[in-house]
């Protein structure tokens, strides 16, 4: 059994599913599972962490932590961890987790394995496996030196456990000394889209250059609305200006591993395949039966996406309405 600290992530008053995945994996292996949550006015949110497997919940309430700030977060997390001396520290490989955990690892002088997709526990040790070269190769990560070991875990890699709302955990109020901060978060500019991020969405629908225009992505958005999906794009579509850079899936964009990935009019360049090959189920729709995307696909439709996608939207609607 290991003493594990999981740094919980939340935004807009909601905990991230990715945090539940970490709690579930740790608890299922019978570890002493500590959750650490930072923010302001988070007492109620903290309790929910018990439903997913936290035995103890450490709460850092501080007005400087109201919004995520890399500097304040990493200082606070490092202080709590130094006092608690866990065996293992986990966070999600989300825009937030990947930003602050390297800082914490440096403050503690310990190793960090990023973007892990497989975890197993053995006594007080953890074994992690991760893709490198955007999924072209898999490696085990060996931790060297002493002190806690750290890992960030790719969202959707572990699966969300079923919550048990009857569970409670000990709440421990932590105080931290943040000192003078050198950075100041002035503003959070909310995205106009209500859709999830491509890296965290359970379903991603991506379009390639065959979509021909930014406007034509509407048919993918309609499908995404039915499935609660994110809309992604190939590098070619982004370079053509159809979608913003942040939607790009691939080695030079974002690496995603949703439950379902639907590639529409994407031929399947190596660098794109690298970015989505760890998706659980891959669907490809393309007019060219020879294009490499079909070799990566579990289900392939040789056909015109402009005809097929709207029909798919109708069919999924029927399923969802049942």
């Amino acid at each position: 059994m290991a003493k594990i600290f999981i740094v919980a992530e939340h935004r807009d008053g909601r905990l991230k599913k990715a945090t539940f995945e970490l709690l579930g994996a740790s608890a299922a292996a019978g570890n002493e599972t500590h959750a650490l949550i930072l923010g302001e006015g988070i007492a109620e949110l903290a309790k929910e962490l018990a439903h997913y497997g936290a035995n103890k919940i450490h709460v850092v309430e501080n007005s400087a932590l109201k919004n995520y700030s890399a500097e304040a977060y990493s200082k606070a997390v490092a202080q709590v961890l130094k006092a608690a001396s866990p065996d293992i520290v986990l966070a999600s490989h989300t825009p937030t987790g990947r930003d602050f955990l390297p800082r914490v690892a440096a403050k503690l002088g310990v190793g960090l394995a990023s973007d892990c997709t497989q975890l197993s526990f053995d006594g007080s040790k953890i074994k992690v496996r991760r893709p490198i070269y955007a999924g072209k190769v898999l490696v085990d990560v060996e931790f060297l030196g002493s002190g806690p070991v750290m890992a960030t875990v790719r969202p959707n890699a572990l699966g969300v456990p079923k919550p048990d709302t009857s569970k409670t955990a000990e709440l421990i109020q932590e105080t931290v000394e943040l000192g003078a901060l050198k950075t100041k978060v002035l503003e959070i500019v909310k995205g106009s889209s209500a859709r999830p991020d491509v890296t965290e969405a359970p379903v991603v629908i991506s379009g390639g250059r065959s979509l021909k225009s930014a406007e034509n992505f509407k048919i993918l958005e309609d499908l995404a609305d039915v499935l609660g999906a994110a809309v992604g794009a190939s590098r070619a579509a982004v370079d053509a200006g159809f979608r913003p850079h942040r939607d790009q899936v691939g080695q030079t964009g974002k690496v995603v591993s949703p439950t379902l990935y639907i590639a529409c009019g994407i031929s399947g360049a190596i660098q794109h395949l690298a970015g989505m090959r760890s998706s659980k189920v891959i669907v490809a729709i393309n007019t060219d039966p020879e294009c490499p995307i079909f070799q990566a696909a579990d289900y392939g439709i040789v056909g015109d996406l402009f005809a097929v996608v709207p029909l798919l939207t109708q069919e999924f609607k029927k399923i969802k309405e049942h």
Partner: protein
Amino acid sequence: MNIYVCIKQVPDTETKIKLNSDSTGIDPAGIKWVMSPFDEIAVEESLRVKEKNAGSTLTVISAGPARATESIRTALAMGADNGIHIELPENVDNNTIAKALAGALKKEAHFDLIFTGKEAIDDGSAQVSQILGEFLDIPSITVAVAIEYGAGTVKCKREIEGGSFEIIEAALPVIIAGQKGLNDPRYASLPNIMKAKKKEIKALKAADVGVSDADQKIRFKNYQLPPPKQAGKKLTGDPAAQAKELVRMLHEEAKVI
């Protein structure tokens, strides 16, 4: 201003990766090595700052095997003034690289702005710019898509999740990791490529920058190619039949919907 840009050489995205015979690394044969694409964005940004601030010097730094000097030369051809190469073995971890970069920077007179890419596309860890910030004890701002330069300050727009952005301000010196969208990196012109050949690249060893084996905190082992994918199912018929059958299969067979 003294501007620095830290870059890493990586296999080109179109490179097919093969493993060495004992699965302890990749087979270097046939790999086309390039500057990591996000680092090109960092080089471009640092050039623009240099061009707007007369009298500035731009130094490009890379820590890695001897071949890394090729990517330093590329940055020099884009317009950087001089280079520093810290020779490190293949496959050192991010902590070691950050320690080496910090060691080299601390030997410099002073630094105002340090740029990196938001991640290197080989291991995609996105750790070095943050660790470097800790080692130098200066702010490190990641995933920047827009930067406003003030008097001794920067205001960055950084990408967070779900299409949202954070606006963050810090005083110099500061490290900024660039994301796509920040700029479009330039190509080196032929005359500049020729000029770059004469520019100085200072050679440093691990010991010069205070790096030892103890800085290595993680190591990759048991390299494996992902298992080959089973042949998928091709759906036939007219679009309506294809759509109906796909949705049925995703619902009943794959059970993902």
